[in-house]
């Protein structure tokens, strides 16, 4: 009972969400918000692997998302879309090929991360931060200069794949895939971190020199860790591209990386459940602050003094969120969960579930 309780709850809640989406009880907008929550969870947990568990400081995570998004988009359009010539595969295959496409996007992103991992063998935190920022700029700039996939105009046509899946079997396919990949991501990260091999990651975080002496192959662990992290981010990028149906290199710039970092530090470094919780909270916060009426209400004292000043929600949102984070850093610098998991904070939960 204890062994399967969590799986049972997860499957039931996923089925519940999917059926809500299928019978039109929740609108497309709410569905999109849930998908963004899933994508942000993947981004946040994968960045947490490097920033939290390994203690390195990378701030260019959106670069891998960009690579994954473009790789899977191009593949998907080649296979089922009309934009780059006739589709290579019949649309009935879309359901089976789609996860493969996302995986290949993740693989390409993982290969790109070698660019970051190899200098990380020798360099320390600040220099590594720079290398990751540089890689972020390089990836965006490289894709902007590739004219056959649209360059800076962006790239579209991924919706054809989604429609092909829907024509084969009507259902909320994208939501299903986002949930699947989200669960897969959490499972992979949990398995990796708690394994004997993954303990080396934590050893590097504590003391790299000592870990090296204790026969942890630091270079190999770093390489594997970066590749897993970037690969999962690439999967998130592929899902993002298919949810939105349009990708643009500029939507994966430093701001996107900053968002991912904010989520990691909000949740707590090295805490998987903290990362999940903070991704959910952050995404919902972003959506709630999008409403103009709420912002007007919050800004009422200021607009009372300056009647001709009209704050727009999209701008004020980006003042409020950093302000919240600065306050969190002041009063609870370890984030929501700190370095603990959910079962450490509430020990009684251990009776009801195990999560390995």
């Amino acid at each position: 009972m204890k062994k399967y309780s969590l799986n049972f709850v997860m499957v039931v809640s996923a089925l519940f969400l999917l059926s809500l989406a299928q019978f039109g009880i929740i609108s497309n907008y709410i569905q999109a918000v849930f998908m963004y929550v899933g994508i942000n969870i993947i981004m946040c947990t994968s960045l947490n692997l490097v920033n939290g568990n390994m203690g390195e400081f990378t701030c260019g995570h959106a670069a891998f998302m960009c690579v994954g998004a473009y790789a899977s988009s191009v593949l998907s359009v080649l296979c089922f879309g009309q934009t780059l010539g006739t589709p290579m595969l019949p649309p009935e295959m879309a359901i089976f090929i789609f996860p493969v496409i996302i995986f290949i996007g993740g693989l390409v992103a993982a290969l790109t991360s070698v660019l970051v991992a190899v200098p990380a063998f020798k360099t320390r935190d600040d220099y590594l931060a720079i290398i990751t920022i540089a890689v972020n700029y390089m990836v965006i700039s490289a894709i902007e200069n590739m004219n056959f996939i649209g360059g800076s105009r962006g790239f579209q046509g991924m919706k054809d794949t989604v429609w092909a899946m829907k024509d084969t079997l009507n259902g909320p396919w994208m939501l299903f895939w986002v949930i699947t990949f989200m669960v897969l991501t959490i499972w992979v990260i949990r398995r990796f971190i708690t394994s004997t091999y993954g303990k080396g990651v934590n050893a590097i975080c504590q003391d790299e020199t000592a870990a090296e002496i204790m026969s942890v192959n630091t270079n190999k662990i770093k390489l594997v860790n970066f590749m897993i992290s970037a690969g999962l981010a690439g999967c998130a990028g592929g899902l993002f591209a298919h949810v939105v149906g349009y990708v643009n290199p500029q939507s994966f710039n430093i701001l996107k990386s900053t968002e991912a970092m904010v989520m990691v530090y909000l949740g707590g470094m090295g805490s998987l459940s903290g990362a999940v919780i903070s991704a959910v909270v952050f995404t919902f916060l972003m959506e709630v602050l999008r409403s103009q009426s709420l912002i007007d209400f919050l800004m009422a004292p200021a607009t009372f003094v300056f009647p001709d000043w009209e704050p727009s929600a999209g701008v004020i949102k980006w003042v409020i969120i950093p302000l919240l984070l600065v306050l969190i850093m002041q009063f609870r610098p370890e984030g929501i969960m700190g370095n603990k998991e959910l079962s450490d904070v509430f020990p009684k939960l251990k009776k009801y579930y195990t999560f390995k």
Partner: protein
Amino acid sequence: MDFIIQNILNALQWGSFYALIALGYTLVYGVLRLINFAHGDIFMVGAYIAFFVASFLLGPAIGLSPFLTFLVAVPLTMFLTACVGVTLERVAYRPLRRKGAHRLYVVITALMCGLILEYSNLAVLGASRLKFPELVEKSIWHFGDVTITNLKVIVIVTAIAVFAILNFIVTKTKIGMAMRGISYDKFAIPLMGIPIDAIIVFTFILGSGFAGLAGLLFAMSYPVLEPFMGMIIGWKAFIAAVVGGIGDIRGAFYGGFLLGFIEVGVVTVFPSTYRDLFAFTILLIILWIKPTGLFGMPQSTKI
């Protein structure tokens, strides 16, 4: 030949801005071991402060001549921008330092402060770009095909002068010795009777003041202001500082000019869209070969 000299001059001007901002980055990093990611936005705030100061001085209330305005605006802008920098240190960084928080949390706070500065500027002043008034009358000298404007000369001379001043302060004065001491050992220095907070505030005054000066000169050279002008140039200046070896004044100076030369060189040979790609690739290669930057010292850890 003339073409090459012209491009070298352009690169010197472009590199001067990078060098000025990178110097501020390096100062703060050298003393605090903190990447002050808000520095690029302090540069942006400096440009805006310069705009308002210049408008006010040129306006009907005071009505100075443009050149006098320039002379008054330089110290005033530097002072006000330094106030912004010190406020940031007081409000955001110092409480965290008092608590002994992890270094990364301070970095995240700095990033967030930069975002707050950008977006509050956008919220208050709107998205319309401001046109900076012309302060120094443009005079252009021709040497064959090479054209030099007096602004270019002012910018390059300023960068070199600032470098000389900072180098003098850090290596020859007592307060500079205290700065170097703090970066060497933060725990032993207070025991020697050195007021650590005063030194850190002084560092922020220096860095932010010169960022304000860079903002003023940038606004004079490229007279269109927007809230996000500090973002890209700030990141790039930081990269320049790292390539030079962060925490080293010379490194920041040479790194800024190196990045300027690389960017202008790429634009003259390739289409301008390749600028970022080539610049960052070259920097990555430099960091691959020398992981601590050009002038940086490798830090050895005791076991």
